[in-house]
């Protein structure tokens, strides 16, 4: 049973990086730029377990871990937003003219040229001029994204419908010395959280009205759950913490959200025309057993994504440096979880279609491509598909 949730944040949301934080460990919390999928999955599973009055025994935990949780993404003015793709680079001219937008392309290596890319991959390059990339919007609306995935950069422009990363809410706390009634010496700590009720609009002027500078957002998640978990998720409507420090969010299931998670018609139409070269963009960070390389690709970088039916040949990659995810396990072995390395959201993989039909990928829109089953259930590696 698939349920779509709408989350309304009441508080700034804590989604920490792996640095130790707490008494005798670290006095400074650092936030990641957006909620990690596992934070959302963990919070929802706890909420469902509690809603069902379960005891979090091994059996309960097993059932809860079977739930597939995807997201969260921002929703503003009724539209879904995805993180900016890595194959977009902005060139900002000195004279204040409109920024030029470039799309990365697979570069043909000429005679005598070379690079140390693994597996004979081609570099993904931009146009040849030297420039320092300018800032690009962090969150793109679904229709803009669809356009990016099926056309090139011509006529592509940024406006105020593009959104920026959430503002960081940093709070400094002191520990009071009960005897003195004053701040205890050296007992100072800082928390950092994502202000996820509004996202700044791209290009907004600092002296504009608040409503022009910020877009009010909700968050959306997709849950696939069966049995007692599914029964609890389907009518969900309540307040529960999301992330660390018990920051509160209103969670409710919203049936009309379903259409927003579907492949946009423009993309589905293009995929149905048997394209020979594809782009896979990661809407959430992915965890692959080969590090940067999906485990479903063989030594020749050829393979089939989970749930798909065609064979793809990897031709090029445009990904940022790895980031780490860990967390805290309440189950045994209790304590810090092992570090896993993620390909960050926005990473782009370029493929040639070797066998089969790409049209089926429209059905795999926002489905996970990570290797491990549990990582997929935790929402890592949701993929968007387009042509190159």
């Amino acid at each position, binding site marked *: 049973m698939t349920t779509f949730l709408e989350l309304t944040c009441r508080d700034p949301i804590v989604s920490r990086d792996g640095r130790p934080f707490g008494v005798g*460990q670290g006095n400074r919390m650092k936030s990641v730029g957006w909620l990690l999928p596992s934070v959302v999955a963990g919070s929802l599973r706890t909420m469902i377990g509690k809603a069902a009055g379960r005891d979090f025994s091994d059996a309960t935990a097993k059932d809860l871990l079977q739930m597939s949780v995807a997201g969260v993404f921002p929703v503003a003015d009724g539209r879904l937003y995805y993180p900016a793709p890595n194959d977009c680079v902005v060139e900002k001219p000195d004279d204040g003219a409109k920024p030029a937008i470039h799309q990365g392309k697979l570069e043909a290596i000429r005679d005598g040229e070379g690079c140390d890319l693994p597996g004979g991959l081609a570099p993904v390059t931009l146009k040849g001029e030297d420039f320092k990339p300018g800032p690009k919007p962090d969150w793109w609306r679904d229709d803009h994204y669809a356009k990016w995935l099926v056309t090139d950069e011509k006529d592509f422009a940024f406006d105020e419908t593009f959104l920026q990363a959430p503002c960081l809410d940093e709070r400094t706390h002191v520990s009071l010395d009960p005897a003195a009634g004053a701040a205890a010496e050296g007992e100072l700590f800082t928390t950092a959280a994502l202000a996820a009720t509004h996202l700044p609009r791209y290009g907004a002027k600092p002296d504009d009205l608040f409503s022009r500078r910020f877009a009010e957002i909700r968050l959306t998640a997709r849950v696939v759950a069966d049995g007692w978990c599914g029964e609890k998720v389907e009518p969900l409507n309540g307040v529960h913490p999301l992330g660390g420090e018990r920051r509160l969010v209103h969670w409710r299931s919203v049936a009309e959200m379903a259409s927003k998670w579907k492949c946009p018609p423009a993309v589905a139409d293009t995929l149905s025309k048997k394209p020979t070269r594809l782009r896979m963009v990661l809407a959430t960070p992915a965890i692959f057993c080969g590090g940067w390389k999906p485990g479903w690709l063989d030594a020749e970088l050829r393979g089939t994504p989970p749930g798909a039916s065609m064979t793809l040949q990897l031709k090029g990659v445009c990904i940022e440096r790895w980031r780490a995810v860990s967390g805290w*396990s309440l189950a045994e072995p209790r304590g810090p979880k*092992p570090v896993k390395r993620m390909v960050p959201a926005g990473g782009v993989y370029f493929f040639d279609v070797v066998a089969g039909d790409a049209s089926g990928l429209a059905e795999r829109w926002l489905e996970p491509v990570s290797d491990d089953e549990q990582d997929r259930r935790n929402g890592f590696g949701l993929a968007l598909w387009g042509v190159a």
Partner: protein
Amino acid sequence: MSSHLLALSVGPVQEFIAASRRTRDLWFGSYLLSEISKAVARSVRIDGGKLIFPSPDNADELEPQTGSDDDARALNVANIIIAELKDRDPSVVVQNAKNAARARWRKFADDVFDDPKITRAIREEIWKDQVNDVVEFYAAWVPFNGANYPLARKRVTQLLAGRKNCRDFCPAKGRAKVPKSSLDGLRESVLVERRDDWSAKTKRSLRVRDGEQLDVVGVVKRAAGGDRPYPSVSRVAADPWLRGVKDDDLEPFKEVCASFGGNALHRLDTEIYPRYERFPYEGTAVYRNRYKELEEETGVDIKPLADALKALTDKHKEPNPYLSVLVADGDRMGPAISELKDIGEHQAFSKALSTFAESAKAIVREHRGVLVYAGGDDVLAFLPVDQCLSCARKLHDTFGELLKEQSKETKQELTLSVGVAIAHFLDNLEDLLNFGREAEKHAKNPQDDDRKPDGTKQEKRNGLAVHLLKRGGSPITVRANWSDDLDERLATMAEWLADGKLPTRLANELRGIADAYERWDDGNALENAIQKDALRVVGKKQPPSEGAMGNIGDMIRARVKNAATLKRFANELLVARQMETALRQIRHETAQGDDE
């Protein structure tokens, strides 16, 4: 076999440089990256490559550094290497360079691991998981027959950028129940859980706080290259105050510091840091609020030091805790490099930059600062507050002078933009760096409300920005092109304040007036009203000694047209006040109204 142009890049920059708690982490991380880059350049040269960037005069300059000059260690080879290969297989040269990079890193890591006082603190199995998976390396090459160098350079740069778009990496060998590095959280800690049986030597080498965790990179940055101390941000912050304390008062305090025998207080090598000879210890020694942490890190009873400091501060007040972070970066470097016609011109360009880096070392030293790195057109240094502006000016002028020829050749005006952030030494080191980088960005790009004294727009680049980040309150920022002499204005105002020729609270009152006029429409009436209001305040104030109120009045008449211009003027006075505090400490005086 034909000839090629080869471009190489080494990392990880972020982990080596930005992830730092102690100044030593930052300094050694930068040095580490430079040493790995040098090893790559050396390998390419040994394989017959002709180095273009960097372009050392002789092979010795690429030998692994063994000397004891920490300032020289701060002279960096940038993490990009460009070379020409003749009749060599580029893929073989690249493989050798990659091996050299890894071997250089392993040398640092193995030396640390083999040190008995460190080995006992390390979990060997986790160390081994991590130690071979640190260095990042990227390479690209294009055929080059000697003709049309700009085209070949542009193409190889493009291919290298394309190569770096694939940041390939291995999966982590993570372990459950192990905390992550406190510096960046990217890997598990390699430190053993129980620390109570660590020897004093182990504690002194690692200087970890209770609960602090370090991964393999963190331990190498903290413990490689010997125990010799590196000046801390607190030493730099305390410098003006220490210069103001009389010898007779300082000597007994130094004796107490010496009695710890290096167990609690690192002693700086005065041959390497002669500028700190007057007080060659960590600055922590003069800030009593750091004693708890000092005790935690070293396990030494700090009471004798606390008593000695009390005697000193009873007489000389408390040292001011602010220092400046200077970040400088060359302007129009990319377009200029694109204009270089041949390898010879590019090599000369590289040499001019390395001469600048050498000069930067001397300039920072002259200004009693600590160079963290100087490589290519980049400089990062910590400086006492009273020295930062003159150091910035000298760096700017020297850069322009040394790259004069290249400016002509490339038809690009090669200038240096400098950002200076004045902040509290207790601010997290990562934040201090970010403050400096923000100021440098501001120096390059004026904001809409940055204007020249005559109200016209400022030009991009070739700028100086000073950001004052007081604890509590929003940052105060000032920015100007170098031709507007912002540095001189600030220094003069600071002198007037220190000499008692201006009342210290004038700046706040002028800011108050600026706020009151914030939403008024521009025009003659506004200019007239705001000037009169500001002059009224100036006229009402009585400075402690005669002198500069007339000058301030003239400045107001010339510069103040509306709320924004008055605010900019008041901001300059506020920044000058921070500098005045440093000047008064040198003069062994306490600033009026200075509460820190």
